[in-house]
């Protein structure tokens, strides 16, 4: 199937990168690459929103934080002091508790992260729905401000509430067992596995999105981008589709937040901040608004560089500059039509040269 070639390519690149780090003894890079994957997941979701709902969401960081903080809070409640109580017994009987022994020999009993996973997704999706339904039906770009406001609310809440750790955030978040033997955790011993987990998640998302884009719904979404009035006239419930896309983006962000929090073992209020939301927008803008692969590639590169500290003090400024330059000179993104055309003509040239030398 032609449409899956890029996905296979991505998978190949992921494997090659890992092997390269192994060979060159630079496996520590896998950590930042893993984190980048989760940020790429957020960007991919935002790409759908910006490219198809045609609106900017400046609140993706808020959804990310919902995912992260929900699980951080729930899984750091220690149930072992409550072992006698009814609550404990019920949860235990339902198989919802996980027992762990810490380095110091203490027993920790915490909620199964699958519960917080479901809750994270539900809360994020629900918030996106309530926000999206009224705002998306407004003409113009109110969503930008409304989502910025949403992000600020989330930020202020986690910053100002004791149960979320205020400025320090929540740490000591336990690792999360996907299937027996495969854990999402920051352990060095599990570094390679986690690298693959994160990128597998991205690949899964890309697969689903690629399928979607090529389906009946995807066509409706692409016409939203091409001509919303036409889509309307052809029977597409544009309002509903925009909300659906917005919710999808929010869910993807919260899933990313969930996984990254368990990987990092914690989360802080900066993940909810406007600066982070702006980054996601910058990444999607550079990648080309409706260009999923652009967002992924750019997301990987920019996040990796940022995490490696390449931008130094000017981290935020770099993303700001990117935004400005991109919108001024390349509103279709860096990886846009002419980029592909140039690529194609180069490939053609190579092919014809090889043909000539054979003749």
């Amino acid at each position, binding site marked *: 199937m032609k449409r899956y070639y890029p996905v296979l390519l991505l998978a190949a690149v992921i494997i090659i990168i890992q092997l390269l780090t192994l060979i060159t003894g630079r496996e520590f890079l896998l950590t930042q690459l893993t984190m980048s994957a989760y940020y790429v997941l957020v960007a991919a979701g935002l790409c759908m929103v910006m490219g198809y709902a045609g609106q900017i969401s400046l609140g993706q960081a808020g959804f990310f934080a919902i995912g992260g903080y929900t699980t951080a809070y729930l899984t750091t409640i220690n149930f072992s002091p409550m072992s006698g109580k009814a609550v404990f017994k019920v949860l235990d009987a339902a198989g919802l508790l996980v027992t762990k022994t810490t380095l110091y020999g203490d027993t920790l009993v915490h909620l199964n992260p699958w519960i917080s996973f479901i809750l994270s997704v539900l809360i994020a999706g629900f918030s996106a729905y309530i926000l999206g339904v009224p705002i998306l039906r407004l003409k113009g770009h109110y969503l930008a401000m409304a989502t910025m406001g949403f992000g600020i609310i989330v930020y202020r809440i986690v910053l100002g509430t004791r149960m979320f750790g205020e400025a320090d955030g929540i740490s000591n978040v336990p690792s999360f067992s996907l299937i027996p033997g495969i854990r999402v955790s920051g352990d060095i011993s599990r570094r390679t596995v986690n690298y693959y987990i994160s990128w597998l998640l991205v690949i899964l998302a890309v697969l*689903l*999105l690629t*399928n*979607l884009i*090529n*389906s*009946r*719904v*995807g*066509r*409706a979404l*692409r*016409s939203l*981008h*091409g*001509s919303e*009035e*036409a*889509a*309307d*006239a*052809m*029977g*597409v*419930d*544009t309002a509903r589709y925009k909300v*659906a896309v917005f919710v*999808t983006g929010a869910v993807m962000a919260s899933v990313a937040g969930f996984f990254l929090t368990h990987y990092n073992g914690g989360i802080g209020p900066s993940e909810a901040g406007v600066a982070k939301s702006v980054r996601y927008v910058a990444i999607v803008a550079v990648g080309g608004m409706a260009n999923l692969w652009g967002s992924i590639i750019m997301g990987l590169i920019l996040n990796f560089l940022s995490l490696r500290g390449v931008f130094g003090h000017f981290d935020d400024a770099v993303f700001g500059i990117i935004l400005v330059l991109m919108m001024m000179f390349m509103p279709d993104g860096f990886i846009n039509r002419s980029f592909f055309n140039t690529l194609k003509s180069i490939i053609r040239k190579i092919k014809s040269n090889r043909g000539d030398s054979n003749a």
Partner: protein
Amino acid sequence: MPDRAVAPIMKIRNMNKFFGGLHAVDSVSFDVKEGIIKSVIGPNGAGKTTMFNMIAGYHIPESGEVYYRDTLLTGKKPFQIASHGIFRTFQNLKLSTHMSVLENVLLGCHTRGSAGFLSGMLSLRKGREEEKRAVESVIPVLEWLGIADMKDTEVGNLSFGDQRAVELARALASDPSVLLLDEPAAGLNMHETDILSERIRAIKDKGKTILLVEHDMSLVMDISDEIVVLNFGQKIAEGIPEDIQRNNDVIRIYLGGEDA
């Protein structure tokens, strides 16, 4: 045309639209019988486009009703109106320029399908088969309009005439019962207009009802079964082409009267 008392497929009653102080459409009423071609004409500013857009759901009238069979359409959004089988074209073509001809036309099949988000993401069999059937149903339309061999071309690269054909194909792909054509002859030369006439007649022969807004008199007089004439938002005349051509009021508003 057999003169039977058939219930009209569309009833437009007392439509009024104000834009600020401008009374753009003033108490306009008319019926559209099933299976005919009806044209709405009038000088610039007569309110025909506004009327058209109200029927299609783009404007909400201050008062008045539009009925499709027995269903009230006024107040519904365009996509809801489309779900009843009423589809329109746009005068200044609203196509997705970066999508292929086939993809644009397939959009017309949207209301005939039901595969949703989940089905799309998981590429479920039902959705894929639906897609296959949609493509199969659309190819004959493309062939009929002479654009089948460019089905994979990006619409933005086509000539204006071909783009027009894509727009029409898209509306037809929906298998509409009522087709609303918004100045279909705009920008076409005489030869292209003749071809358009034939096509519209062929569409009518398939049992579809067509309502169109048009400036091109030769097209209108050629193919219309009935004509409605608007001027300054009001209905001046309605009837068969011969009667309209002889109607003094109509002649006056187009050619100017004797302002003694």
